[in-house]
């Protein structure tokens, strides 16, 4: 169990960069590492994350005070030690400003709460331009710049000056790379509406046996292993205060 509550915000101001996909990989990762987790889906009123992880996800409207209370006033009261918040497009800066206003960022700076931000970046200047603004809120937080390869574009790595101006400017930020998932595999998981882990295990939403393509399951397994190795690299279970078991439940 975590010594103190941990909050992970996954977001971006730009849409279509894969915020919910990364949130799903995080929930699968914590599940496989036996870290009790709850999550909030801010795609109010419909919710996307909730479709994949209905048991642990609640849909909230982060612009509403009552829902902010639902998330932050319960951090110490509820048993899951890790809270993942999937912030919908366009709301990241506002959400961080709200967290500052309610004193949450100060609490993180004071060490009462572990706070991490996974800033999901797409391969476009519009997306990368968000970094400077978001970085202003990051004192006291673990700030992760998540390069999500939603297509084959290389995040300007062919132009070192441009690349460095975004990725090497923020001193305390850590880069993460999410590789591209095979498109058909991605769509098949979408259709199945199950966590990636269940898809790999060939299970339906209620743990019933499913009949997903072995090829697509293989692609998802390979991709998920690569994503998780990035989470291992940043010692994510240590960050949220949970000792990582030697063998993940999914690997037994």
């Amino acid at each position, binding site marked *: 169990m975590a010594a103190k509550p941990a909050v992970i915000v996954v977001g971006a101001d730009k849409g279509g960069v894969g915020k919910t996909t990364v949130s799903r990989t995080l929930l699968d990762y914590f599940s496989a590492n036996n870290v009790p987790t709850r999550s909030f889906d801010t795609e109010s009123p419909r919710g996307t994350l909730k479709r994949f992880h209905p048991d642990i996800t609640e849909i909230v409207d982060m612009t509403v005070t009552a829902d902010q209370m639902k998330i932050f006033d319960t951090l110490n009261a509820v048993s899951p030690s890790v809270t993942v918040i999937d912030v919908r497009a366009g709301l990241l800066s506002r959400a961080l400003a709200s967290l500052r206003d309610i004193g949450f960022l100060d609490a993180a700076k004071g060490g009462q709460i572990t706070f991490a931000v996974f800033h999901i970046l797409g391969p476009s200047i519009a997306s990368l331009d968000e970094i400077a603004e978001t970085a202003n809120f990051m004192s006291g937080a673990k700030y992760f710049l998540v390069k999500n390869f939603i297509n084959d574009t290389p995040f300007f790595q062919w132009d070192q000056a441009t690349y460095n101006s975004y990725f090497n400017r923020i001193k305390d930020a850590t880069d993460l790379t999410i590789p591209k998932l095979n498109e058909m595999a991605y769509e098949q998981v979408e259709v199945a509406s199950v966590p990636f882990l269940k898809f790999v295990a060939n299970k339906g939403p209620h743990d019933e046996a499913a009949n997903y393509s072995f090829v697509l*399951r*293989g692609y998802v397994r390979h991709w998920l292993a690569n994503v998780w190795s990035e989470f291992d690299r940043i010692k994510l279970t240590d960050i949220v205060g949970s000792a990582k078991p030697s063998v993940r439940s999914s690997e037994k």
Partner: protein
Amino acid sequence: MPATPIYIICSPRPQVGKTLLARLLGEFLLLKNGRVTAFDINFKEPSLLDYLPGITETADVIGTYGKMQLMDRIILDDGLSKVIDLGFHAFDEFFKMTEEIGFLKEAVRRNVAPIVLFVADTDRVSSRAHEMLRQQIPSSHLIIVDNEFVVRGELLPSMLHGRILRIAALPTFLKTYIDRLTFSFTGYLRQEQDSSTELHQWIRRNYYAFRDLELKLILQGS
């Protein structure tokens, strides 16, 4: 139950005898088991489909959909032997995919036995491809095919350590004879009364070699 075998006949080089071997093996399995399914993944070489249309389907491993169509069928433990004639252009993509999707592990789980028949050549491309396969495929499931017509007794030293299936070279006139689309190896064995002919003995020798391969597979599984 013995594992369902999948014979993957491959080389990164064209014109080394992959389709010839696939024809021989396909006809042998058809003779022995009464049924076999072959998959032809060739666009640029003589096609297995042209020789054995009754048992052969075309397949593609370039797109994801094609991969699903092929792999989701061959991973089934249905007791039906399968032969894949993998064209040289599809070599890299196929084995990259099998590595990524964990094909070998899943095959073991499902009582399916992939046997990779790597048709050797003496060039650097073949050497590198063989090394890649050695990293990916357990030695008991990787067989070097020493086609005398191609290798001419000069098999690379790195390929001498694994299991080897030797195919003797035929004289050119017989090679031309068996290359005809209407030629059938089993048909020849049945029709040719004189068992001492060179071709008769060549076919029988290869059929024995396949039987030996199968027996070793069964013994490994038991």
